[in-house]
Structure formats: structure tokens, C-alpha cells
């Protein structure tokens, strides 16, 4: 040990504590108020993500090994079911193609902007963030795959959430069931426009501020209305379970169940933004 210095030059522990606390607080304020920190965070995450991916790999292998040892009959049954399903889809698709061309024609006649076909990109959930404030997952597609922040994320059944942060080769999806998430929807039965919000639980959504006399009944299907420019039109979002009459507040409340299997899947679809083409299409 070197001889003790005659005068202490280092700062005392409380002084250093105060300094570090101030620095952290400043960081938090900057991060929550300004977008400046996003670039720093994004580039820093590029170093952490490969580590997480490597750590997750053995677990992925375990899952795949489990799939490998699935019973033969199970696979056959599933295959048969999938073939049937694909036939059903193919028949639907024929009608869809006809409708699509008709739609293009009608839109041309009405001079409406033509929504370019929405492209979907499959992504796999690689990590679920242990965040007590928000429900977020990390998927394995990022800016390199053309993902941008704000894109809607769906599964085979319905809406799941929205891309909120994009890194180079992964991105962060905020689930629809988080309390701060909301989606503009309309009632499929009568076109009533509503806003459905998360309730902090995977199997519940709610319409918080509902007119006392709104025409909404248990069993109604809510689909995206497409008026916010984020979610394209017509993605199923929720099924109404019950409508609570107003008690202390002047608003009624509808409890809904999400249609997308939130929290139960490993694969998701990231939709491309429905790009609005040139404002006016020439009439045909």
C-alpha cells in the first residue's frame, strides 16, 4: 500500500453520491423530455443486443428440440388441418382478388387516393422486457428489414400492438394491452367509432369513455377504423364482453377481450404503413 497522502484529495462519499445522483436525475429528465437520448440509447443497445441474442440461443435450441420430438400423428393431423385451412383461404382469396380489382376501379371512379397494398413482414419474439411500467417485447426485425417506428403489429387473428422503437436489427413492440396504448376502432355492426385502450392485462381491453346511450352490445366486434393513419382499416381488435353502465362518472365503459392472442405467440406480423399514393388518381 502506498503511503497515505497528507491531505485527502478525493471527494467524500456523500459528495460523490450527490454528484452521481444529480447526473442520473439529469439523464432521466433529458431522456423523458427530449428525443436527444434516443440516438444514444439506440447505438448503445446495438452492443447489448448481440449478447442477449447469444444468451437466448440455447433456449431456442431447446424449444426446437422439443418440436423435433413431437409425435408423428400429431404432425400428420396438423398437416391435414393446415391443408384444409389453406384450401379455405384459397377460395376466400379468389373472391378477394375480384373484390380488390373492383375496389381499385371504384376508387378510381370516385377519385379517391389508392392505398397501396399493405405488406406484412413476419418477425419472431426474441425477448420480453421485464419492465414494470409497460408491456413490451423485442422482435428480431429492425431498421435493416425496413421496419419503422409506429408500424402496426398483428398476428393471425387480430391486432397485437405497435412498433415503438427501432434498432438496426431488432425492434421493440408495445403491446396493445399496455395501459398507455390505445387504438381507434369502430363497431363492425354499426360503424360506431370508439377508442379502445389497454387495461394492463393480457386478456382485457376497455373502451373507457363511452356515451351513456351508445349502441354497443356484448358480442360486438371492434375493428380498426383507420382514421389515425397508424393502423390500417379493418383489423379485428376486440370482442365486447360486457358494457358497464355509468356509476360515478358520466361515461359508460365497455370491457372487451382482445382478438389477437396477446402474450401467447412467438411469431408476429409487422405491417408496412399503408402508404397513401398520389393524392388524386386519374379516373379511368
Amino acid at each position, binding site marked *: 500500500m502506498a503511503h497515505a497522502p497528507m491531505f485527502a484529495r478525493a471527494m467524500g462519499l456523500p459528495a460523490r453520491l450527490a454528484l452521481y445522483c444529480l*447526473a442520473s436525475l439529469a439523464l432521466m429528465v433529458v431522456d423523458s423530455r427530449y428525443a436527444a437520448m434516443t440516438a444514444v440509447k439506440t447505438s448503445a443497445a446495438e452492443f447489448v443486443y448481440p449478447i442477449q441474442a447469444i444468451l437466448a440461443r440455447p433456449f431456442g435450441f431447446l424449444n426446437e428440440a422439443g418440436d423435433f420430438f413431437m409425435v408423428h400423428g400429431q404432425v400428420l393431423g396438423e398437416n391435414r388441418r393446415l391443408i384444409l385451412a389453406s384450401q379455405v383461404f384459397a377460395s376466400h382469396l379468389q373472391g378477394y382478388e375480384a373484390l380488390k380489382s373492383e375496389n381499385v376501379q371504384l376508387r378510381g371512379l370516385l377519385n379517391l387516393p389508392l392505398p397501396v397494398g399493405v405488406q406484412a413482414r413476419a418477425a419472431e419474439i426474441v425477448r420480453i422486457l421485464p419492465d*414494470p411500467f409497460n408491456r413490451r417485447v423485442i422482435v428480431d426485425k429492425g431498421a435493416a428489414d425496413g421496419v419503422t417506428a409506429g408500424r402496426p403489429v398483428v398476428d393471425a387473428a387480430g391486432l397485437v400492438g405497435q412498433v415503438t422503437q427501432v434498432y438496426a436489427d431488432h425492434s421493440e413492440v408495445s403491446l396493445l394491452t399496455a395501459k398507455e396504448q390505445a387504438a381507434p376502432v369502430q363497431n363492425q355492426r354499426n360503424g360506431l367509432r370508439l377508442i379502445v385502450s389497454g387495461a394492463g392485462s393480457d386478456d382485457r381491453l376497455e373502451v373507457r369513455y363511452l356515451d351513456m346511450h351508445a349502441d354497443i352490445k356484448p358480442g360486438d366486434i371492434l375493428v380498426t377504423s383507420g382514421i389515425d393513419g397508424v393502423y390500417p382499416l379493418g383489423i379485428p381488435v376486440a370482442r365486447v364482453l360486457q358494457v358497464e353502465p355509468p356509476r360515478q362518472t358520466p361515461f359508460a365503459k365497455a370491457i372487451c377481450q382482445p382478438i389477437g392472442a396477446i402474450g401467447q405467440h412467438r411469431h408476429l406480423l409487422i405491417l408496412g404503413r399503408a402508404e397513401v399514393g398520389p393524392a388524386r388518381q386519374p379516373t379511368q
Partner: protein
Amino acid sequence: MSIDKPLVPQGPLLLTPASTRLVAGSLILAYLATQLPWPDGVSWLLPDFTLAVLLYWSIHAPHRAGLGLAMTLGLLTDIAQGGLMGQHALTYTLSAFAALSLRRRLENFQVGGRALQLAPIFFGQQLLFLLLGLAFHRPDVDWRFLAAGVATALFWIPAAHLLDWLTGWTSKMHIEPADSDPSVRTRGRAGHGGRGPR
């Protein structure tokens, strides 16, 4: 003042001082453990491995694991979890400070007793973390995450046993009171002047 009862506590802090390699290695391992793909259902019950190991070193090797290291690890955790920058940094720094202040007292306890003394720090860290989130406009707080603070205190027990075994620290190495264990005292006299081998 008699020489039998020295004013400054005598005795080695550690027989084999914690090597930088061991401190860094255990901290890296703990940090990686938090990055494992833990299932979603247990994330609120998951102990904070990094914090537990960090506080162990704050107590046993305060010259290596001080406030600066706590802040660095906190920032790394913030980056990995994608939350608010500085949230973990602040709570880790405060926890390390609390552990450093408690250090002298903790040396008189066995591992279980130390875990009990540290439990309020772990719990308080988690509580402060959630409150900071509330303060910075994240209203959707999952209060179940408070359980992680208790889980961290429980995790601290096996972790401390393991690290004690790795560093060769035994519970005989109490430094206070100096006359309770003659072997330690004589050894402490031999190396008079330093607080412990560095």
C-alpha cells in the same frame, strides 16, 4: 490508552483480497444472468442479480466496488432494459451508498443476518425504481415488481455463500470487537498500519 484495545479497528478485511478478475467476472456473470430470456410470467419475481453481486462487493471490497461502478452498472442495465436512462443508475448508486454506510455493522453478522439487514435496501431500491417511473410519467406501474426486491435479498444468501467461498472469507474475520478472536487480532497486529492487505 492501552494497546490491547486499539482505537482504530485492527485486523485484515480479507485474507485473500478479492482480485479484480473475480469482482469483474462475478459482476459480468450476474449482468448476463439478468439478460437471459426469462419467461414473461416470472419477470416480477426475478431477483436483480447485478445489484446483489454489486452490494456484496460494496461490502467486501469497497475500494473496488464504489459508487462509480454502481452507476456504470445501472446505466448498463438501463440500456439493456430499454427503460428510462438513469433510472437504474440512480437506484443502484443509492443502494451502494446505503451498503457502504452499513458495511461496518454488517461485518458482525453471518450471511443470513446480513441478508436480513440488506433486505430493506433491496426492497427500497425496487420501490424507488417504481416511484421514479411514476414521477416520470409512466403511470402504468405493476406493483408486483416489489416482490423482486425481496427475491433479491433471498438470492443474496446463496450468492454471498458462493462468493465467500471463492474469496476465502470466513465469518471468523470479524474486525470488531478486536479482542473477541485472538487469532485474528494477532494477525492484525502483524500487519499494523493498513486496514487490510491490498
